C-alpha cells in the first residue's frame, strides 16, 4: 500500500522548482559570461531528479 504522505508537499515543491527553472534565468542569469546558467539549469534538474527518485523508491509519493 502506497503511503503517499509526501505527495502534496512534493507536488507544491515541484511546481516551485519548475517556476524557478523558468524565472531565475530570465530575472538574474540572462547576461552571465561564465557557466552560471549551465550550472543552474543542470543543478536544479539533477537535484530534483535525485529527490524525486528517492521519494519514489521509498514509497512516499
Amino acid at each position: 500500500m502506497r503511503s503517499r504522505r509526501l505527495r502534496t508537499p512534493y507536488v507544491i515543491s515541484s511546481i516551485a522548482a519548475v517556476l524557478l527553472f523558468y524565472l531565475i534565468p530570465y530575472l538574474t542569469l540572462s547576461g552571465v559570461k561564465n557557466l552560471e546558467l549551465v550550472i543552474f539549469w543542470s543543478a536544479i534538474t539533477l537535484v530534483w531528479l535525485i529527490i524525486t527518485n528517492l521519494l519514489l523508491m521509498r514509497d512516499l509519493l
Partner: protein
Amino acid sequence: MSDLLQVFVLMLVAYVSLGSLIAYFSRRYGVRSSRDYFVSGYKLGWFLASMTYAATTYSAFMMVGLVGLTYSSGVGALGFELAYLLVTVILLAVLGPTVWAMARERGWVSPSEMLSDLYESKLIGYVVVTIYLAAMIPYVTAQIVGVAAIFEGLGVGYEVGILVMSVLTLAWVVLAGMWSVATTDAYQGLWMLSAAVILVFLLLNQLIPSSGVTLNQVLKALSEKGLLGITGFWTPQTFLAYTIPWIFFAVTNPQVVVRLYVHKDLHSYKKSVLLFSVFGFLYTIAVVYVGLIVRGLTELGLFEVISRSDLVTPTLISRLHPALASFIYISILAAAVSTANSIILTVASSFVRDLIEKRGVGNVSVLKLSNTIVTLLTITSAYLAYIRLGFVVDLSVLTSVLLLPLAPVTIAALLMPRESKDCVMRRAALLSLLVGTFISFSFALVLGPRKTFLTSYYGLPVSALTLIITSAIMLSGYVISRLRKNKD
C-alpha cells in the same frame, strides 16, 4: 566507394543483423493476444522498460536538431531540453504509478483506451485515435526523411534510406510486437548513449587539443559571444513555445503513455524511472556539450561557420575517422527507428483496440490485423517521406502542439477518476479536445506549421494559448459538475 561509405555499409549490416537477431529471439516471450503484442502482457522488467522509454522519447532530433540548436542559439537549448526532462520525471513520479496500476486493473492496452475508459465514452476514444493519426504520422515521416537525407548525404541514396528505415521499423515491430520493440530499443538506446559520450570524449581529447586550444579558450570564446547566457533567440516567448508542448510529452504522446502500462511490478516501474532519469540527464548534457564545443571552435576560427543548424552534426562527423563517423550515423538511425516503430505500434494499438477488438474479434484475427495495420501505417509514412510532401514533414514540428489538448484532459481524468465519469466532465473533455485541435490545425493551415510554432499573441505562443483554453474548458466542466452535484 569512399572509405566512409564502405565502413558505414559494414557497420549498418552489423547493426541490422544484431538488432534483427535480438528482435527474433524476443519471440520466445510469446505473443498470443493483443495484450502481449502491444504491451508485452505487462511483463517488462525495469531495464527493458526504461530503455524503451528512453529510446522512444529521444529521437534523431537529439543528435541532429539539438546539437544544431545549441550551436546556433547557445545554452538556452540546454534549458529547453532539461525542462522537458525535469517535468517528465515529476509527471512519471506523480501520475505514473496510478496509470500503471489502473492499466493492469482495467486491462488497458492502448492510450486512447485509457481515456475512453476514464471518461466512459467511446466517442472520446475515436477522437483521440484521429488526433494520434493526424499528429503522429507526420512525426514518423519526419524521422524517415531525416534518415533518408543522411543516406543521401553519404551517397547511398535517399530512396535506399527510406527503404532501410521502413523495413527496420516494420520488421522489428511485427516479429514480436512490444517485446521486439523493447529489446531492440534497449540495444539502440545503448548505441545512442555510447555514441554521444564517445563524441564528447573525442571532442575533449582529440578535436580541441589538435586544434591547438584549450577548453578554457573555447569557453571564453562562447562567453564573449554571449552564448553562455540567454541569447536574443531565446526570448521568454520562444522559450515557452519550445518548452510547453514538450514538458507535457509524458501525458500527451501515445508512444510514451503506453510505456507506463508495461512494467511487471511497481518496483520495476520505480527502478525504470531512475534509469530513465540517469539516461536522460547524461544524454542531454552530452548532446548540448557537443553543440557548444563546435560553436566555440567556430568562434575561434578553427571550425567552419555552419549556417544551417541541421548540418552541424554531419559537418562535425565528416571530420572524424570513418569508423567513428559511421558509429554516430548509425546512432542517429537507431534513434529514428526506435522512435518510429514505437509510434507505429502504439497508433496501431489504438486502431485495433478502440475501433476493432472491442467489437468482438478473436485473438488470432487481432494479431493478423495488428500486423496489417502496422504495415499500412509504415507504408503510408514511407510514401509521404518519398514524395517529400512539405506540409506533412513541416507538420511534425507541431506534433506536440497538436497533442497538447490531451494534457489537461488526461491529467484531470487521472487525478479525478470518479468525477471524470460525470457527463459534464465528459462533454468538457470532448470539447477541450475538439477546440484545442481546431486551434492548432487552423493556425497550421493559415500560417504554416513552422510559423505557428513560434507565433505569439498577447505575449503567449500558440501552444500556451491552446493549453490555457483547453485547461479552462476542463476547469469549467469540473466547476459545473460540482455545482450540479451540490444542487442535487
